[in-house]
C-alpha cells in the first residue's frame, strides 16, 4: 500500500505543478501589464510596489526565466503579497484555512450521513409515497443554487424567526470561552454547513437509493436469502455494503464542487474562510491573492481525492493497491 500512496503523492505533486504553471500563464492572459495585474487594483497605484513586483518576478527577463522564478517562489510558500490587505498571501490563507476546513468537513459529514440514511429509507420504501417524497425533495435541493438556499435560510431563520445568527464565525464582542464558545460557533456554523450539506445530501441520497435498488437484484442477495438470513441482516451486510461503493466514488468526484460551494456559502454568511477570501480578492481585483487561493483549493481537492481513493481501495477487496 505504501508504494501506492507514494505514487499517488508524486502524481498529485505533478498535477499541482501543472496548476502552478497554469496560474503563471493565466496572469499573462489578463489584459495589461502583468506587474500591474499582480499588484491588484489597490497596489497598482503605488509605483514602488509595482516596480518591486517587476523586479521580483523578473518581468523584464525572458519567459522561461520568469516561469522558473514564479514556480520557485510558490514552492517556497511565497504566494505573493496582498497590497490591499497589507499581508503576505500565504499568511492570509493560513489564517482563514481552519474555518473553511471546519465548514467543509461538517457539511460533508452531514451530507453523507443524511444522504445515505434518506437513500436507504427511500430504497426500502420504493414505490410508496414516502419514496416519491424523498426523491422530490432531493431533486429540488439538487436543482437549487447554493447561494439561494443560503439566502432563503437566512430569510427564514434569521429574519423571520430570529433563531440563528446570519453572519460570521462567532458573536463579536461576546468573548465566550470553553463550552459557551463552542455553542456560539456551532450556532453560527449550522446554517452554512446545512446549506452546503443539503445540496450534496440530495446527490448522495439519490445515488444510494439507485445503488441499493440495483444491488438488491444481484445474485448474491438471492444466495443470502437462500441461507435463511433475516431481511435486516441481508440489508445491512449484503446490500448496503456493496451499494455504498459507488457512493464513495461519488464523494471523491464531488470534492471539487464542495470547495466551490464553500466559496458561495462563505460569501453569503461572511464566514471567515478562504472562500470568502476569494470573494474579497475578486472585489479588490487582487489577482495575486485570487490565484494563491486557487492553488490552495486545488491542493485541498487533490488531497481529498487521494483519501477517497484510498478508502475505496481499502473497502473493496477486488481492487488492490496497484495503480
Amino acid at each position: 500500500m505504501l508504494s501506492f500512496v507514494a505514487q499517488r503523492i508524486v502524481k498529485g505533486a505533478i498535477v499541482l505543478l501543472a496548476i502552478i504553471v497554469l496560474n503563471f500563464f493565466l496572469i499573462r492572459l489578463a489584459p495589461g501589464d502583468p506587474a500591474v495585474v499582480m499588484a491588484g487594483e489597490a497596489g497598482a497605484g503605488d509605483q514602488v510596489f509595482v516596480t518591486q513586483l517587476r523586479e521580483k518576478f523578473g518581468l523584464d527577463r525572458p519567459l522561461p526565466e520568469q516561469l522558473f522564478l514564479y514556480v520557485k517562489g510558490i514552492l517556497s510558500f511565497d504566494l505573493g503579497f496582498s497590497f490591499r490587505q497589507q499581508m503576505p498571501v500565504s499568511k492570509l490563507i493560513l489564517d482563514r484555512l481552519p474555518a473553511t476546513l471546519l465548514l467543509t468537513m461538517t457539511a460533508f459529514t452531514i451530507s453523507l450521513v443524511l444522504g445515505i440514511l434518506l437513500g436507504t429509507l427511500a430504497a426500502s420504501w420504493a414505490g410508496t409515497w414516502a419514496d416519491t417524497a424523498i426523491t422530490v425533495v432531493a431533486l429540488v435541493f439538487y436543482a437549487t443554487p447554493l447561494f439561494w438556499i443560503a439566502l432563503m435560510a437566512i430569510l427564514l431563520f434569521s429574519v423571520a424567526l430570529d433563531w440563528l445568527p446570519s453572519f460570521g464565525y462567532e458573536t463579536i464582542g461576546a468573548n465566550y470561552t470553553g463550552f459557551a464558545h463552542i455553542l456560539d460557533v456551532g450556532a453560527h456554523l449550522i446554517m452554512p454547513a446545512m446549506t452546503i450539506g443539503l445540496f450534496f445530501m440530495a446527490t448522495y441520497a439519490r445515488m444510494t437509493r439507485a445503488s441499493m435498488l440495483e444491488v438488491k437484484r444481484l445474485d448474491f442477495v438471492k444466495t443470502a436469502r437462500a441461507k435463511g438470513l433475516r431481511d435486516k441482516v441481508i440489508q445491512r451486510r449484503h446490500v448496503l455494503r456493496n451499494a455504498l461503493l459507488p457512493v464513495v466514488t461519488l464523494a471523491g468526484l464531488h470534492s471539487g464542487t464542495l470547495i466551490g460551494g464553500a466559496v458561495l456559502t462563505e460569501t453569503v454568511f461572511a464566514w471567515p474562510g478562504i472562500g470568502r477570501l476569494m470573494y474579497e480578492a475578486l472585489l479588490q481585483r487582487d489577482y495575486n491573492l485570487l490565484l494563491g487561493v486557487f492553488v490552495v483549493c486545488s491542493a485541498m481537492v487533490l488531497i481529498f481525492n487521494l483519501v477517497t481513493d484510498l478508502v475505496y481501495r481499502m473497502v473493496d477487496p477486488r481492487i488492490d493497491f496497484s495503480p
Partner: protein
Amino acid sequence: MPSDPAVRIKDLRIALPPGGERAYAVDGISFDLAPGEIVCVVGESGSGKSMCAHALMGLLPDSVTTETGEIALEGCNLLALDADRWRDLRGRRIAMVFQEPMTALNPLMRIGEQMMEMFEAHGLLSPRERRQKALGLAREVGLPDPARIVRAYPHQLSGGQRQRAMIAMALALEPAVLVADEPTTALDVTTQAQILKLIRDLQRSRNMAVMFITHDFGVVADIADRVVVLRHGQIVEQGSAQAVLIRPQHAYTKALLAAVPSMTPPPRSPLIDRNKAVDVIGIDKTYVTSGGWFRPDRTVQAASEVSFAILKGETLGLVGESGSGKSSVARLVMRLIEADRGTIRIGEVDLTQLEGKALRDQRRRIQMIFQDPFASLNPRRKVGQIISDGPIAHGTDPKLARQRARDLLGMVGLDGGAMERYPHEFSGGQRQRIGIARALALDPEILVADEAVSALDVSVQAQVLNLLEDLKTRLGLSMLFITHDLRVAAQICDRIAVMQRGVIVELKTTATLFAAPEHPYTRELLAAVPGQHRPVSLSA
C-alpha cells in the same frame, strides 16, 4: 427405493405477468424427489425449469404468482408457509446452489464468513465452532488449502473453487433436499466433471434428495437416477434415466436426444492434393498489464508458437477450455488483434504484412461468425443494411448488394421480409443465421466460426450446424471452427487442434484424436465430456 418422497410437487401452476410470451411459466407440473435420488429436470431455455427450482426454495420473483398446486416437503405444504417458517426451512432442510458462482457470492465478504453465515442465520453454534465447521466443510468439498481459502475473497478463487464453496455452504446444515440450478453450466468441461463427481459423492454419503436443473443431456446421462423433461412449462416425459434416455416415448424427447451430437466422429474422406487455404506460422501473442513503477508487469501468454494450416474445403477445429487462447488465435488470424510475431497467409498473400486499404481489400477472403447472437448485430441497423454494408464498402453497387442480401437470407433459411426488420425482432438462432449471411456476403474463401453455436439451445444448435455444413460443401469453403464442445467438434471437423494455455498440444485428424489421444491433456479433456459412460443412445 420405496421410501416416502422428500418432496412431492403436485399440479404446480405459476403464472407469469400479463403480456408475456405465454400465460404460465410452469403449467400443471407434478413429480417427486425421493431421498438418495438425483432427479434431473431437463429442458431448453424458457422451459420453466429454473422457475421450478426457485419455487421449491420460495425465491420466486415478485412479478410471478403461484396460482394452484402444492409442494409438500416432508409432509408440510411449502406454498402455505409464512415468511418466518420459510426462513427457518431455507438452508436447514432445503438448500440451493446457483449457476454463476462469481455473482452468487458477496464480493466484499470472505468465503469463510459467508459459510459461517449459514449457521448464524439459524442461531447455531458459537463463532469459534462455526469457524471450525467452515474449515471442515471446505475440506469435505475438496478445496485445496482450506485455511487459506476460508480467508480469501471470491474473486481470488477460480470458477470451480467458487462452486465448491457454494456447495459447501449449501450442505452446511445437512439439508434433506438440495436444489442445483445449472451448477456446472458456467464451468469448463474438466472442472464440470470434478464438480459432478463431488455432487454425486456428497449426495450418496448424505442420502439427500437432489433436484438438478440442466440443459445438457450428457450431464443427465452421467448423474441422473430419474429424469423429468420440460417444455414450455409442461412435463413432456418423466421416468427413470434408463427409460427416458434409452427408450424415449415423446417426440420432443426423441428430437432433443437426436440433436445431441455423438462422441463418435463420422468417417471422413481424407483431403489430399489440396492447396492450403490458410497457413498460420509461429504466432505469438502475450498480453501485458503494467504493474506501475514498483511492481513487475503481469503477462499472459495467449498464443505461443501457434502453427497450423487449413486445406481448401477442410474444417479445422480449435478446441480448448477457457484461457486456452483459442479465441485469441481466432482474432489473431482475422487480424482483429495484432500478433507479436509470426505470419498468416491466405492463399499466396501474407496478411500480416498488409496495412490500410490493401488489408481491407484482402479481408473479404476470410470472414467471421461470432458467438453472441445478441451482441454481434448492430441493434440500430436493419438486417438488410447489416448484410449489404460489407459488399458496399468494397465497391459493389448498392442495389446489387441488396439483391444479394435477399438471396443470402433465403440461403440461410429466412424470408426476404427480414431485410426491413431490426435484429431485436429475431430469435437467437435466427440472428445467428443473419450473422452467417453477413459473413457469406463477401464471397469469402474461409469462415472462422468463434463458438458460433455455443450460445444456442441444443435443437437450434443442430439446425445451425447442419446449415453450416451444407453451405460449406455447396460453396467450397474452408472453416476454422473454435469450440469448447468436443461433441460438436467430433461431428463437423476434419482435423482438430487441442489448445492449452496458448499452446497447441495435439493436432490430429478427428478420428485419430478420438480413438487414440496422445497428449495427457487431450486424454483428460476427452474423459471429462459427460454422458459417455452410461446409456448407449448418447454414444451412438
